[in-house]
């Protein structure tokens, strides 16, 4: 484990708890992010599939909303996003953004 990553997570956690209240808490975000992890490395590594780390909550939310709206440019992300409610998109975006070394 790289120390950089660990401290980034710690920072992410602070953000997580200061921003999120009870409803749709971070545990839901973590469970949803488990789906992301089947294709996207959550340590920010990897090639071939675009990284979702370091994008920030707003960009992630907007990307998921755009994928949900259209089959193009990516039918895989279209299927994933179509299965998510607005609330789920918000909680997974918040969780994944908090994993980043550079949220937003």
């Amino acid at each position, binding site marked *: 484990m790289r120390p950089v990553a*660990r401290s980034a997570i710690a920072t992410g956690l602070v953000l997580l708890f200061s921003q999120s209240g009870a409803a749709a808490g971070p545990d839901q975000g973590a469970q949803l992010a488990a789906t992301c992890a*089947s294709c996207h490395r*959550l*340590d920010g590594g990897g090639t*071939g599939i675009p990284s979702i780390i370091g994008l920030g909550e707003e960009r992630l939310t907007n990307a998921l909303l755009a994928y949900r709206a259209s089959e193009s440019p990516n*039918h895989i992300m279209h*299927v994933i996003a179509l299965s998510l409610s607005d609330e789920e998109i918000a909680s997974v975006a918040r969780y994944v953004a908090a994993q980043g070394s550079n949220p937003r």
Partner: protein
Amino acid sequence: MKSWTRREFGRLTGAALLTALNQPKARGQAKARVVVIGGGIGGATVARYLAASATAIEVTLVEPRQTYATCFFSNLYLTGLRSFESLSHGYEALAKQYGIIVIHESAVAIHPAAKTVALNNGSKLSYDRLVVAPGIAFRDRAIKGYDEAAMEIMPHAWNAGQQTRLLRQQLESMEDGGLFVLVAPPNPFRCPPAPYERASLVASYFQRRKPKAKILILDAKDSFNAQDLFQDAWNRHYPGMIEWLPAQFTGGVTAIDAKTRSVITAGATFKAAVANVIPAQMAGRLAQLAGLANRSGWCPVDPVTFESALQPGVHLVGDAIIGGDMPKSAFCANSQAKACAFAIAADLTGSARFPAHLFNTCYTYLAPDDAFSNAISFKPVDGKLKSVISFVSKVEESSEVRRQAARAAEGWYDAFTHDVFG
């Protein structure tokens, strides 16, 4: 047993991926014990997500092999496009980073009333919950003459390992002009597109190395997964090289003769230079022995918790289950495993439950730089796993789109195996 508050659980899952081990252990109380049998894709994923999401659970993983070789991407290895090492994954990260107790033994019996598992070395493990993910076994006598000795001559290569190496050696030493016969199994079986992906990649290898060789697919079915995409690609990339004979033309494969490397159907005998015989399948042996499979040979489960419909306290994921619309794929095994791990964590620690999300995503190679993908989402409906939304690549896609999919597939392999094995 301590029941975790949302906030505590949230902190654990939030930090889980990297810092589970740094969390102080709950002291002075017995931990709940989960035993996972089978360290393949389904079992390793359950173990990892349970260990990462709840430090109040002690997770033991039972798997005889020291390293796991993935079936997915083994067709690339078969045809010289990947090394065997690149398919191999050990259990060190699961043990060291996630604190999972990994025992390299086979489970030989399950005693649900006593809640114990007997191992090959004579020892016993007690559990509060058991997860069984043994993958597949081959049905006995599905093809006459296809026994263990015949497998060494006409490999199935449907579990990755020595069988896959054997088939590669045979393909490499085959003379140009030889006939490669692939016997494709009846439904349901592990990875519906994989026999046809194998035929495609072997064709691309032959084109490079043995251009006069031919491929004959003798199918137990009359149609197959993504048939339009495969047949379009075979015409484009390998015209005249691959012949596919459905069961309605041949009556299906009834027997083999290992001595002459022949495959026998109702009306004809095909003598092969190399034969890849993929027999009919069922849930892994342990599931049969332990009464977890019904008469279909597969294991019925609750589609939300993946608890066995036949043995309470025992959960199953992966190829061994009756997955409804979910195909027997690594992606599905991984997706089911996460839902199962979260359900067990909720039962044992009182953590919050959320609706599960189940998916299949699959990249399939038609040629080294031509891959297609599909994606399906699933939901439990009336006790069954039903597909909800499904998209697949189209025949008329540009070669650039297909090249991109082949590149994405490489990235998927890296991220996915990282997700399963840490």
